[in-house]
């Protein structure tokens, strides 16, 4: 088991430091989008604070031992935002950040959506929405079977919650005590919804009856916290609280802004597909105050 002292190594309680990590991740993904001719930049920018809080403030892991059976797991179920995950893993020390230069280059192991084991720290190949929560539930259940105390975090998009499979997994993870294999819910599982209000072609509230999303998770047996998805202090506090004493899994509805951090991308869904020019990269990095 990871001991508390070593488990916290590499983590910080300082929200300013977490914000700096997030800014660096943002600056990098803007450039990666341009270099790799890869879309979904708005989606990557909206979850940068969540990734920063998770990897630099919460997850008990050792980047030098990415297969440690006791590590906390983080699954980026919204695989189209993988540039943000790659950047985060690089800055967290899972691999040399110079590898990021190869993002989406032919023949490299940094594809536009993560393939199985493409880089140390990538827990699952995603890109098809609605798979991550089920895989995460399996990992959480395995932890219980093996009597290990790791936690599993799954980051989904709000549009992803259109998928029926999400709700099958939510129903499994939130099941009440009964005779089914011990029956208690998966309290070591945390779903984070990057609720930026957009999906590919429209406002997510307008495509399907997504709201009230928090009530949906509650109805499925989950605890729910609605939080500012750009507040590192709040995000770390809530994520560190897993598992809590209720015995329920936790859903964090993280209210975010798509394209967050770059004035001309914020809440503009054109940046779901648009690629920034070199001049736009420079402008964005100037706004972020980071060259990465």
């Amino acid at each position, binding site marked *: 088991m990871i001991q508390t002292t070593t488990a916290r190594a590499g983590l910080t309680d300082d929200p300013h430091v977490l914000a700096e990590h997030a800014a660096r991740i943002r600056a990098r993904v803007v450039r990666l989008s341009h270099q790799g001719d890869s879309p979904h930049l708005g989606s990557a920018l909206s979850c940068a604070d969540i990734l920063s809080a998770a990897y630099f403030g919460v997850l008990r892991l050792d980047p030098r031992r990415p297969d440690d059976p006791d590590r906390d797991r983080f699954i980026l179920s919204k695989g189209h935002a993988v540039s943000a995950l790659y950047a985060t893993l690089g800055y967290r020390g899972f691999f040399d950040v110079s590898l990021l230069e190869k993002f989406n280059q032919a023949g490299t192991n940094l594809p536009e959506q993560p393939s199985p084991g493409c880089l140390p720290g990538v827990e*699952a190949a995603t890109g*098809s929405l609605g798979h991550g929560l089920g895989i995460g*539930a*399996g990992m959480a*259940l395995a932890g219980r079977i093996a009597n290990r105390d790791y936690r599993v975090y799954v980051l989904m998009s709000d549009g992803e919650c259109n998928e*029926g499979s999400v709700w099958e997994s939510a129903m499994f993870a939130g099941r009440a005590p009964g005779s089914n294999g011990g029956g208690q819910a998966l309290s070591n599982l945390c779903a984070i919804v990057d609720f930026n209000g957009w999906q590919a072609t429209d406002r997510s509230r307008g495509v399907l009856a997504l709201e009230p999303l928090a009530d949906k998770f509650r109805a499925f047996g989950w605890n729910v916290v609605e939080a500012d998805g750009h507040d590192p202090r709040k995000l770390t506090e809530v994520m560190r609280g897993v598992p809590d004493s209720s015995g329920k899994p936790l859903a964090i509805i993280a209210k975010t802004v798509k394209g967050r951090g770059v004035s001309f991308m914020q809440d503009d869904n054109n940046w779901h597909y648009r690629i920034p020019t070199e001049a736009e990269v420079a402008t964005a990095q100037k706004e972020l105050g980071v060259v990465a």
Partner: protein
Amino acid sequence: MRNAFAKAIAGLAAADERVVLLSGDIGNRMFDKFKEQFPGRFYNCGVAEANMVSLAAGLAMSGLRPYLYTITPFVTYRVLEQIRVDLCYHHQPVVIVGTGAGLSYASLGATHHSCEDIAVMRALPGMTVVCPGDPPEVGAAVKATVGCDGPVFLRIGKKGEPAVHASTPELRIGRAITVRPGRDVCILSTGNVLPLACETAQALEASNLVAGVMSMHTVKPLDVEMLEEAFFGRFRLVVTLEEHSLLGGLGGSVAEWLVDRCVSETSATPAKLLRVGTQDHFHHEAGDQDHYRALHGLTVEAITARITSVVQPESATTPLLSTPYPAPQTR
């Protein structure tokens, strides 16, 4: 077959603490013993098969060996993308057990039939497809899956199928079992039609045809060594028999292999290939498995007629081999 599975999986779980059994809310009372012996390793996943597959992937990624169990259409067609991405793309050692395969649940209608599942599953990269022929083969196949490092589709029937093998055969995945030797005709059988294959071989004696029967329990990977012997050895006709569509099942697999084989070797003349399976359309009427088999031409009489229409005895005076069933043997 399903009782054989229940018994085998309990034995496997006793020997391997990584084994976890997931059920899609079926198998009432069937797994009572398993649940009693291994309460922390049985999970009823409800009528929610997509989650069941992804859950199994997560369990396998964490070092466990999950077995999924439910009615075949619901754990194949319904969750094809979960299987493709979570199990095959990640190459996880998860065994998908489809029960009531083929026309086992004929009376429940086509919603519960699975005559396209082999085709769909064998198209997936890295998937192993195993269709045991009788209850003893089910037990042997379950044990054999432990040696697989990737996903396996284990296609079984219902309950009450007759045993062809007198005892548990030695079963190696990818190696067919010789059930009955022959000379003129070789019947390659996969899945729950193995008894039908044996009865057909017996019936062909009346036409002075000596038919052998192979239980080709593994459709992917094909036993190409056996196919080589069957097509370029002593047989004049090779018959594939399956309770599955002619599109993409055992017959389709063998036809693909034969075409490729003949491209690379043009001097030898292979035996003829006759494919017997279900038709490319749904039937809508009520009826049990035997009724539905008759609709699809899967009877001793229909198959025998097709065989004798394409191959006749070489000579009425040719002595026949002994006809009683010999003890099955693994090649």
